[in-house]
């Protein structure tokens, strides 16, 4: 772990001791697992503290751990251009009503990744300026990247089962 990341973790621990759930270093990728209610405080610290300066929000990766609880996890990958250091913040959300505060106030670039997570996983970002579907059509039902969402194979229509499949299709009906 490079010095800047150690300093970052120390500073977060000093200012928000209750927020950190654990620190991981799987495959040399430092990860801070934080409590979802304190996410915005920590992001404000990492973004605006002049000594830390994590100016680039690289990505928000969202994972569904169904059927385990907490079901969803969000990984915020932050990069400090000045110090060339990278850290990951992870929050874990329950499956019932996944909700977390939006970090668009810290990084404008969070806008689209959060919309993507909302669209694909159904995670609600509180305080997002424009939370709409981004990749799927606006009238789509469900959130495709959830593990309990079927992949959606279509049964092939042959002459022997033509009418059976036709009767299941909801289009072209009176």
């Amino acid at each position, binding site marked *: 772990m490079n010095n800047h990341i150690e300093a970052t973790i120390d500073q977060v621990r000093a200012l928000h001791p209750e927020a950190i759930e654990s620190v991981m270093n799987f495959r040399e990728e430092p990860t801070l697992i934080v409590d979802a209610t304190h996410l915005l405080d920590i992001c404000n610290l990492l973004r605006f503290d002049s000594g830390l300066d994590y*100016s*680039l*929000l690289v990505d928000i990766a969202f994972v569904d751990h169904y059927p385990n609880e907490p079901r969803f996890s969000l990984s915020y990958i932050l990069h400090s*251009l000045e110090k*060339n250091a990278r850290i990951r913040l992870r929050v874990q959300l329950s499956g019932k009503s996944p909700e977390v505060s939006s970090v668009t106030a810290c990084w404008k670039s969070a806008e689209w990744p959060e919309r993507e997570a909302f669209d*694909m996983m159904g995670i609600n970002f509180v305080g997002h300026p424009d939370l709409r579907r981004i990749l799927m059509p606006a009238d789509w039902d469900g959130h495709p990247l959830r593990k309990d969402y079927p*992949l959606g194979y279509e049964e092939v229509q042959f002459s022997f089962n033509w009418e059976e499949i036709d009767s299941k299709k909801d289009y072209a009906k009176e």
Partner: protein
Amino acid sequence: MSQVRKLETTLDELKTLFSDKAQTGETMVLNLGPQHPSTHGVLRLILELDGEEVVRCVPDVGFLHTGIEKNMEAKTYLKALVMTDRMDYLNNLGNNLTYCLAIEKLCNIEVPKRAQVIRVICAELQRIASHLVWLGTSAMDLNASSVLIYCFRDRENLLDIFEMIGGQRMMTSYIRPGGVWRDVPDEFVPAVNRFLDYLPEKLADYERMLTRNPLFMRRTIDIGIIDPSDAVERGMTGSSLRGSGINYDVRRAMPYSGYDEYDFDVPLEDGCDVYARYRVRMREFHESMGIIKQALDKLEPGPVITDDRKYSPPPRSELGNSMEAVIHHFKYWTEGFSAPKGEVYVATESPRGELGCCLVGDGSPKPGRVHFRTPSFHNLQSLSFMSEGYLVADLVAMIGSIDIVLGDVDR
């Protein structure tokens, strides 16, 4: 009936994106795309215009969404590889590389030296091929249509080289977990050398056509200005970010595949405009050629894929006389290999910016989750900020300058 109602609410939601003037008709709301040649694919932009000036530009993406991330979860690690080619269809080998690096990090696979050098050559050839398409299409947007034909002619040479190594012109799936599919053929190195001799002269031609062309300069200089701090705030990476003078290149910041052993410059321009981004990419052609030349010198005989039989198929010659090899062969091609539990994130420098792959292993032979951080998606976000106050014609120049690929945006 329920579906119709939902659509109406969406239109109401869209109304809030524009100013009140749009409601009264003082400004005009115009739809650009998705089927429009200057949007580089199927990008739809909803523009609010005051005369010919852009007041607000709302990109609408998703027309090319094919559910690649969902599909990959249903395939084994190896079968999912072919989906990555189809994401950013101008950076096929780069996508393969990113995905394979993520698997290798998750499973702790060692990649042989020769394979790493071949990967670097492939990635840089791919960068040149992608930049050639960018140069041709973005110049055509500004009415320099002959450049397009010349660039596609040059790119044809590269596609021939990819066909030589992978059997296909674009969707090669040549880079595999643990190395590359098979060694390069004997005619590969001479073909690359021929191309490296051929390209500089052509690039000089294109520079003569564009770089000091007064028409081109008036269409690009001081157009689409984005300050360094805004560019970072909006998540831009790659050549577009370096056009705003920020020195961030993943090959330098977090070297992979042995990029730290190569000597190259990261071109920077501080114009922050369309012209600066053009200059950066034109210089990157030469840097890529320099890297390929150094890599060809490093190309020494050796294995091209790991000899850990859990992650690579045994060679044909072993199958006749080793029972263990037969078992490995059977397991590898049917069940695939299992990755340990955990989450890794790997970044590479694609021709468009930072291409990241977040791979979650759940202990089974299929990936638990594959998420791609695609540079076009993040770069496109900045378009609405960048275009405010410019003319519609300038907007077209800006789309070209951030070099988006819609397959990469929508996945």
